[in-house]
């Protein structure tokens, strides 16, 4: 039963990533592209968590944790660069 749920989850997240990619390519402003990248990172973390459930391997959560941190730092760095023209002042 869990395998069916994981398959449904993979399908939903793949479709969600496709929608994010559409906003990333189309987005009229630069903020839309930052939001799309941030959402793609969150959806990728969800996919990694699902892979961890599917393979019953708890190593994947360290990967998810690292990706969460790097994604947050990346989003803040993009925003700071556009706001101030510099990342670390």
């Amino acid at each position, binding site marked *: *039963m*869990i395998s*069916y*749920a*994981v398959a*449904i*989850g*993979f*399908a*939903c*997240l793949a*479709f*969600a*990533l496709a*929608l*994010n990619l*559409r*906003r990333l390519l189309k987005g009229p*402003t*630069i*903020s*839309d592209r*930052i*939001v*799309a990248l*941030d*959402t793609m990172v*969150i*959806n990728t*973390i*969800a996919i990694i*968590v*699902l892979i*961890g*459930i599917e393979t*019953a391997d*708890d190593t994947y*959560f*360290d990967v*998810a*944790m690292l990706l*969460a*941190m790097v994604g*947050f730092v990346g*989003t*803040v760095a*993009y*925003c*700071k660069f*556009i*706001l*101030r023209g510099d990342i670390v*002042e």
Partner: protein
Amino acid sequence: MIAETSLADVVISALIVLGAAFALIGSWALVRLPTLMERLHGPTKATTLGLGGMLVASVLFFQANQGIWSAHELLISLFLFITAPISANMIAKVYLHRRRTDPSGNVETPAGPPPPPGTGDWTTYRRPQPGSPSSTAEN
């Protein structure tokens, strides 16, 4: 024993499907809604909540199937719930900054007209004074 296992399976599967559905709804909102300020609502709330549901599902899965109680998942969801509002705030500031500093000038912005140069204390215009709250509320 069998009844317990199947109940845990049902709960885990429901949480996975619910979380994936919330993530999909958030991403659909990102495409569907008209302006950026509305588009921010989808990823910051629905997608983060969906990921939280999936992390709770994985905590239950490892507890039920392997007897491991690991706090990593809760750590991830705590981290995400702390950082999602911060990224949303930064992105909204980028949006307002780009709208206010648009070279075409006469842009209708949700934040009103830009303050005159030199008097604004908005954080994107001037470096915050050391030791003072860099708030926009006094402006």
